[in-house]
């Protein structure tokens, strides 16, 4: 019903706009009908890559979770490494993978896997620890050990978390595959998108975007349906990662140092073990040289710094706007329940669309400047935040709500004292998870369209085979994302300690 209204609205807008930027549904449908074969071939390539990535990424997530379960001491390291890998800019990882792996679908599959594993790993780690201590006491009182804990409690308690993770990773896999296709593949929906962007073929762009959206929504909905069949208990939306490092400042510093060391060793060791050529497979010391004591090091630093500033100037406002809009709309709708029940399914559907894959469209619609970039970043952050905040607002415990009602507290009082504090954990969780997403969005737009910032620098160095610079941009973006992530986490911990102390023990 809502969908029909939306379609009609879209068609009306398209007619009013003269059909230049906004192709109406009829135009798009007729274009799709005319180019069915082309679309189908591209779709099958993208879906196959996404499916492989989905499989491999989720297997990796389950494996990592198993490692952290068997050796709990490794939890911090596993979580930290996973985060660092998650912060890798997919856009620049694509070209690097392409020189490492050669032509073919390999890079797209790896990118799809990279896009999914973290959003499965984090809920899974939380789920495996989601059981109250008494359940383990029960198992132990029958003289049974860790395997029984796993079989009777942990595995089942983690199941809804795993299912939620798998569901989110379906659209993420399509996103990863398409980002790979944006950056130099030969076949697939992403390649078509690039071509139509160049030709400014608006109905074709809408058509591909629609197909990509459907390719994400359908598996998302299917997995949701399947999940509800398998386990009817829903996990909390707050996918708070287990504490990365706990304890004294000294232990935190030691943990961070260990993590940095592990990243460097794995990076360097992996390259050496695989025997990869130093010309395109840069080691940490190559980057240090390029940045610090090569003859043109000063210039390299200047270029990098300028690009970083340009990226931040556009990404940061977009990110904040997305958060504010998501939380704001959720609060507004909680005051207007009838509108909320209309909007929520729509938002959930839109949330499952990999926004980044519509980047070319957004750029064509809003221009190659600040507006387009910020819009895309904001959209990328908005949907998950909105959905999470809506859930959070509903988390206010019933008995306390009743208490407020019994004192005839008005809607506003309940909102201020109860619902918004209950929403904060969700807001911060999505703010944290949105950091890499926002960086992905901004680098994609810069790569494809705006010609400035780190994304554009990545594109330029990839086309010039300037691998020092390409690896440097990857390193800078990763470090930046990790630092932002850490900053948001720190803020989150403060807020949670004040508003939701029960969550800080998780």
């Amino acid at each position, binding site marked *: 019903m809502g969908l029909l209204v939306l379609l009609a609205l879209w068609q009306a807008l398209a007619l009013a706009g003269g059909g230049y930027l906004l192709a109406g549904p009829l135009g798009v449908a007729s274009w799709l009908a005319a180019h069915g074969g082309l679309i189908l071939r591209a779709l099958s390539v993208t879906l196959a890559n996404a499916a492989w990535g989905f499989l491999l990424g989720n297997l990796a997530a389950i494996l990592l979770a198993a490692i952290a379960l068997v050796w709990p001491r490794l939890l911090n390291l596993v979580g930290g490494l996973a985060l660092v890998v998650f912060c890798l800019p997919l856009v620049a990882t694509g070209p690097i993978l392409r020189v490492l792996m050669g032509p073919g679908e390999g890079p797209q599959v790896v990118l799809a896997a990279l896009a999914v594993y973290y959003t499965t790993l984090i809920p899974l780690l939380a789920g495996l620890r989601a059981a*109250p201590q008494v*359940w383990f*006491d*029960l198992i*132990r*009182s*029958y*003289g049974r050990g860790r395997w029984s804990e796993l079989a009777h*409690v942990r595995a089942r308690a983690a199941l809804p978390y795993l299912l939620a993770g798998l569901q989110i990773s379906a659209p993420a896999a399509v996103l990863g595959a398409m980002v790979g296709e944006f950056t130099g593949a030969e076949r697939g929906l992403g390649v078509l998108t690039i071509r139509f962007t160049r030709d400014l073929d608006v109905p074709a762009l809408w058509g591909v975007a629609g197909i990509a959206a459907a390719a994400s929504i359908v598996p998302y909905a299917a997995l949701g349906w399947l999940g509800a069949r398998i386990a009817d*208990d829903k996990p909390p939306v707050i996918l708070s990662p287990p504490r990365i490092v706990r304890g004294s400042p000294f232990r935190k510093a030691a943990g961070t140092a260990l993590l940095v060391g592990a990243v460097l060793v794995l990076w360097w060791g992996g390259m050496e073990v695989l025997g990869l050529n130093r010309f395109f497979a840069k080691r940490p010391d190559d980057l240090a040289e390029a940045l610090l004591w090569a003859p043109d090091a000063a210039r390299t630093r200047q270029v990098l710094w300028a690009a970083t500033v340009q990226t931040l100037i556009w990404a940061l406002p977009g990110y904040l706007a997305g958060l504010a809009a998501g939380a704001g709309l959720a609060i507004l709708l909680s005051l207007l329940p009838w509108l909320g029940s209309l909007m929520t399914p729509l938002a959930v559907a839109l949330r499952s669309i990999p926004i980044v894959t519509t980047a070319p469209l957004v750029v064509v619609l809003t221009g190659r400047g600040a507006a387009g970039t910020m819009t895309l970043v904001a959209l990328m952050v908005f949907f998950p935040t909105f959905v999470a905040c809506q859930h959070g607002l509903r988390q206010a415990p019933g008995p306390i709500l009743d208490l407020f009602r019994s004192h005839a507290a008005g809607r506003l009082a309940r909102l201020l004292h109860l619902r918004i504090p209950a929403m904060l954990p969700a807001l911060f969780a999505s703010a944290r998870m949105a950091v890499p997403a926002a960086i992905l969005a901004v680098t994609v737009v810069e790569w494809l369209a705006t010609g400035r910032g780190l994304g554009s620098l990545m594109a330029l160095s990839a086309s010039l085979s300037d691998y020092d610079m390409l690896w440097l941009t990857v390193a800078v973006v990763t470090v930046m994302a990790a630092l932002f992530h850490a900053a948001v986490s720190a803020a989150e911990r403060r807020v949670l300690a004040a508003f939701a102390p029960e969550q800080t023990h998780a």
Partner: protein
Amino acid sequence: MAPDDHPPAAIVCAGLVKRFDNGMTAVDGIDLTLAGGRTTALLGPSGCGKSTLLRMIAGLEEPSIGGITIAGQPPAALCRQGSLSVAFQDPCLLPWLTLRQNIALGRKLARLPADPATVDRLIDLVGLGGFQQMRPAALSGGMRQRAAIARALATRPRVLLLDEPFGALDALTRRQLAQDLPPLWRHAGATTVLVTHSVDEAVMLADRIVVLSPRPARVLADIPVPLDWPRRPDLSEAPAFRRLVQTALAALVRGGERSQAVAAQ
């Protein structure tokens, strides 16, 4: 239920002290020998360390000083044999299992063959017949607690540890279960330790009452309960019953006053 093949298991606590990592001492020097096949009530004010003592007997908590043997073995050995059951203060049912599956889980964890007849009989006995297929979320607090008791009994344990098993029950159900349950564990020869803060319950259900001081728990009084079995509900009106209640209550009150005096110094 047929008596077990094993002889009744005596529980010996020697010089038990439990001090937690945060420096809090919950149990401070307890020596007790609990005869096999008998029911002992641990009676004490809330927070005195009763659950901690019970958890040490269950092998879930290591004593800081002292030791426990059950039938001459460490508690963990009995746990491994599946001959020890605990009904925790929190009913501790797994939310994804039905009531029946939760009760059968006890036997599964103890590696005993499934015994549907016993499980069904226990379910009826604790008054949950007809709710077998319900999930815990759909049951009331008292129903969940009864399910936890049934789960603990389903393995026919040699040692049965009950932590405030009737805490969430209404007076009527309490009375009913106080009638129905003791014959079960007595007939099976189980050595039962029952934690409670209700004096009447202790007298009604136990052969012996150990009165504990406010935290840290020490033994204040050790009161035999020489009332005949089976005990009928109207026993609680009998003079002998009231005298025992008075004795236990007096011990509790003295302990409370003494600890207040210590605190005031």
